[in-house]
């Protein structure tokens, strides 16, 4: 039996709003479903080293103070939280609120001998994504380095087309460039984690696994040949538990969250 060396929860797309009653066109408020996810993570029976949020923490906040409100909500999480910007976030306000110790909206940190790289694929006032040249150069310096640590990379947008027109129109536009750089670290790259699509999809390309997690709010579904956005039949939010084991393997568990506890 190979022992876990690191275990964390991957959550995404909370779309928290300064108005706790905000639910858009959905059946539930993003506040209530995200609180249910937080409770589920806090009740997880194995120790978690941290929680990774792959963007859309907020839902187009109009003022920096809105992130303070959201931060207070997320403080209910027992493990430490790491976030990165999504297309519905304001990357400067997000960074100043959640990770002011960094000077850029993209950053890297180490936990238990694992290197985590959090990218910023957001573009101000746009829904599609891009990793800009300066950030790509920073990422490349990490990927070609002789650092032997296991590596996990996270970003908001899906890096490759899903075959679904509407969703693909808001994907990462330079996913192929990102992939070529990541290949340089393939020997130590454990997986790439993303959000944005509100659907559980795994993509495998050249031995690299790209895995999304569900939204903590509502779910979508895509299919090959799809034109418009479509909501999933099941609204249920969820998250993933990612575990790295001493033998170099990765395990991902999909955890569903029961909404019947929500009034």
């Amino acid at each position, binding site marked *: *039996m*190979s022992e*876990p060396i690191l*275990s964390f929860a991957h959550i995404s797309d909370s779309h928290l709003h300064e108005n706790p009653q905000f639910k858009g066109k959905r059946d539930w408020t993003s506040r209530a479903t995200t609180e249910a996810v937080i409770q589920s993570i806090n009740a*997880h*029976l*194995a*120790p978690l080293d941290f929680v990774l949020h792959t963007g859309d923490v907020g839902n187009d906040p109009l003022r920096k103070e809105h992130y303070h409100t959201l931060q207070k909500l997320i403080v209910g999480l027992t493990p430490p939280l790491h976030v990165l910007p999504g297309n519905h976030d304001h990357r400067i306000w997000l960074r100043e609120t959640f990770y002011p110790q960094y000077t850029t909206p993209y950053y890297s940190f180490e936990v238990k001998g694992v290197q985590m790289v959090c990218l910023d694929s957001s573009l101000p006032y746009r829904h599609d994504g891009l990793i800009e040249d300066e950030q790509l150069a920073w990422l490349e310096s990490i990927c070609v380095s002789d650092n032997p640590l296991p590596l996990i990379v996270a970003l908001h947008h899906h890096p*490759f087309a*899903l*075959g679904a027109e509407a969703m693909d129109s808001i994907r990462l536009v330079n996913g192929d460039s990102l992939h070529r750089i990541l290949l340089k670290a*393939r020997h130590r790259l*454990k*997986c790439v984690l993303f959000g944005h699509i509100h*659907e*559980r*999809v*795994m*993509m*495998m*390309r050249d*031995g*690299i*696994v790209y*895995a999304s997690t569900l939204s903590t709010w509502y779910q979508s*579904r*895509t*299919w*090959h*040949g*799809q034109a418009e956005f479509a909501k*999933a*039949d*099941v609204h*249920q939010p969820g998250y993933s*538990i990612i*575990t790295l084991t001493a033998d*170099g*393997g*990765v*395990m*991902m*568990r*999909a*955890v*569903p*969250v*029961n909404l019947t506890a929500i009034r």
Partner: protein
Amino acid sequence: MKHINAQAFPIDFVLHTGDVGDDLAGIEQYRECQTVLKALRPPLYVIPGNHDQRDWLREVFYPHSPTPYYSFEHNGVQVVCLDTSIPNQPGGDVSEAQLAWLDEICASASEKPLIVALHHHLFPIGSPPMDAMTVKNGEAVHQILLKARARLKCALFGHLHERLTFIRDGVLYTTAPSTWFQLKTWHGQTGTFVMDEAALPGYNIVTLTADGFLNIRAVSVNPA
């Protein structure tokens, strides 16, 4: 089955990774299963699980194969269906004869995209009740699969009643949830099986694209 039949895009086939039946009394009961599963619009491929009787399953669902393990091709993709079942035991094993057969496939010069299917988990997941019934020689199977890494798109399994993925040496192993009830496991778990009351049945849509990509979409189904 209704959900799969209602999918908006074409599905080439349905793959069932075992425990088609639940400790059935005879081959006639497998014929009844087949009648139920005939409601599926796409063709169905099955493999034995620990709750199946592999000879009856084979005779009913794939009598053209002389062995409970087999391989087929669809749209230029090779799908290898393993038999990890051991009669009257919950755990799994891949027989020597089957390992040799698999090795021949994995060491061949074929460049066709390859998908491997099996029932049991090859590696322990940190849950004692579940890990008491892994594939005993899972590491040997993994080493053979590595020989085909260049064309191996993924390995699909079941058994756990939980959505769980392994990534090992660039190979993606992933489950589908049960079409019935779900369990939950965690590292350091003790005691017996734990039901996951929040989890719904579901399935995966596995798509290979012309550029060599693999996509796996998780679909949940609300029985209500």
